[in-house]
Every structure is written in C-alpha cells, then in structure tokens.
C-alpha cells in the first residue's frame, strides 16, 4: 500500500474541491431532511411548486427513510473521505460518489418522467455528486498509476 501521506499531498486540488462539494451537498441534504421531518415545504428557488411535489411524492422515502437523509449520510461519507484522503479515503469517496451518481440519475429520471416536477435542490445535489465522482475518480486514477 502506498503511504497515505504521499497520497494526501499528491491530489490536493481534488481533495479541496471534494471537501467543498461535500460540504455544500451536506448542507442541502440537511435542509431537505429538516423540512421533511418538520413537515415544511422546501423553499423552491425560481418559484414553482416542484420541490413540494417531489418531496411529498411517494418516492421521497425508502422503507420510511427520507431520501434526503440518505443524501446527508452520503455527503458525510464524502467529507470523511476528503478528511482521510489516504488510499482508503479515496476509494471510499469513489464508491460513495459512484453510488450517489447512479442513484441521483434514477431520482432525476423519476422527477422528469414519473413525478413530472423538478426540484432545484435535488438537481443541485445530483450535479454535486457527479462533480464529486469526477474528483474521486481523478484521485483514484493517480493512485492506481502509482501502484
């Protein structure tokens, strides 16, 4: 295994970007989780009722767990990944952001084709997850080339 200190130094820009992205994602998920449990409707930027419709749809929870809470946990994982940023951290980040990207693709599909409403918060989160995947993929690629 490559020493983690080496890895930490090598991909500093990707690490910083990931940390910033994960923090923004964490805040968005925290807000949506809070509105879910408080029974409030999220403020939808640009007007419209898209966020309300999406958040009150039957796809907003999985086995009773709000999707926003799953997002909160994932972004927490990405923050930890950026903090560790060793071999384990980078691979954990790659795995988390890949799951996030795949699931966000499904959620965006639901918004467009099934629920028929768009929620800017959810779209922002999807974009952040894709950007996080790019960061972790770059770091993972460097890591593999070293080995």
């Amino acid at each position: 295994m490559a020493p983690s200190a080496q890895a930490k130094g090598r991909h500093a820009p990707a690490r910083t970007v990931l940390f910033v992205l994960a923090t923004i994602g964490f805040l968005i998920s925290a807000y949506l989780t809070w509105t879910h449990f408080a029974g409030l409707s999220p403020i939808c930027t640009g007007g419209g009722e898209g966020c309300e419709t999406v958040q009150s749809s039957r796809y907003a929870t999985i086995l009773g767990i709000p999707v926003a809470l799953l997002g909160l946990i994932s972004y927490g994982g990405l923050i930890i990944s950026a903090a560790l940023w060793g071999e384990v951290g980078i691979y954990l980040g790659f795995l988390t952001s890949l799951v996030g990207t795949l699931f966000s693709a499904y959620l965006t599909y639901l918004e467009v084709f099934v629920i028929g409403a768009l929620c800017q918060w959810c779209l922002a989160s999807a974009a952040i997850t894709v950007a996080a995947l790019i960061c972790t993929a770059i770091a993972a690629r460097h890591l593999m080339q070293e080995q």
Partner: protein
Amino acid sequence: MREARDVEKNSTLRSPRTLLALLVAVAIVVAAVLVVLSQLGGAGGGSGEDGGKLYSGIPQDGTTLGETDAPVTVYLYEDFQCPFCGQFSREMFPRLVDDYVRDGKARLVSETMVFLGPDSVTAARAALAAGEQNHYWPYYSLLYANQEAENSGYVTDDFLRGLAEKTPGLEVGKWEDQRGQLLYEGAGRRSVKSRSFRRKLDADFDLQRTRRADEDR
C-alpha cells in the same frame, strides 16, 4: 502450495484494475438495491394486507371509519390526486387511526373532493364504489400508496381494478357494477353516502353534459 495460492490471491485483489472493477460492481449493486427498494416502497406500503391490518377491528360504514359514538369526528377533505393528501395519508393517517380511531376516541369521515381534474372524479368514484360495500378505507389507502403525478393519466381502469383486487374482502364484480352506476345519473348516484361528493358529482355531470353538447355542435 497453499501459501503460494494465498499470495497469488492477495496480489490479484491488490491489482488496481481488480479493485476498481470490484468498487464499480459494489456501487452498481448498492444503487440497484436502492432503486428496487424505492420502487417497492411505494407499492409495498399499499399492499392489501397492510391495509387489512390497519383497519382490522374498526367499524367501516360507507366513507365513515370508527365507532359511531366517538366523541370527536374528523372530516377529511381530500382529492385522491393531491400530493399533500397523499403524503398525509401515507405518513400521518396510519398513526391517527392507530392512536385515536381504534380505541374509539375519534371517528373519521372522508369528504372526497375532486378539484384537480377529471381523473380525480374517476378515482373518487372507484373509492366510493368500494364504500358501497363498506371497504372504502382500504381502497383509500391503496389509492394514495400508489399515487403518481396529478393528471398524468395514471388513473386508468386497469389501475383501479388492480387496487380493487388488492382490497381485502371487496367483491370486485359488485364493485365494477357500483362503479358503473356511479358513472351515470340514477339509482347508484343516490346511494352515494357522502353528501358533498353527491354535489360534486352533480356539478361534474353538468360539466360533462355541457362539454358533450359543445362537441355535438
């Protein structure tokens, strides 16, 4: 020999490509599980058995749920296509039934509203037809558990029949007859137990008649 094999296995696992493939595979599996749970979740909450459990031992009379002598009556004004009504029905409603209706503290009366579109009327008729057999409430839960986007055309005959088949104890043939009667003015309409809905139906019939007249012209 065994040691040699172990070392080989270890180095295979350590190869970056294998590790990458493994991570991608795990990610796909996890995402697939989430998607399956998400798809099942909505329908799962609406399985007939769950509905049966929630309402077991609670008297149902038309669109009324609970003991007739309950000290409090709660009127629910809802449209089956309304997303917030759906959220209420899926999240709050079971607790309301368990905590207040089951032990006779309150009874619920559903006052079906149809303000979102023609599909609201179709859905409401289907539920009221189930109410004619005093199975309104399980059908009500199923409609909300399987709710899609309003006016997206999901309220089809097949959809409604599928829910009727899932409703425990409902005679589907009889339900079809009742539903058919509710589609036209006549004896069936008069048996509709909800007064406000009867008024809604009248308004709807007037609208349909006007539209038909317009089309004929």
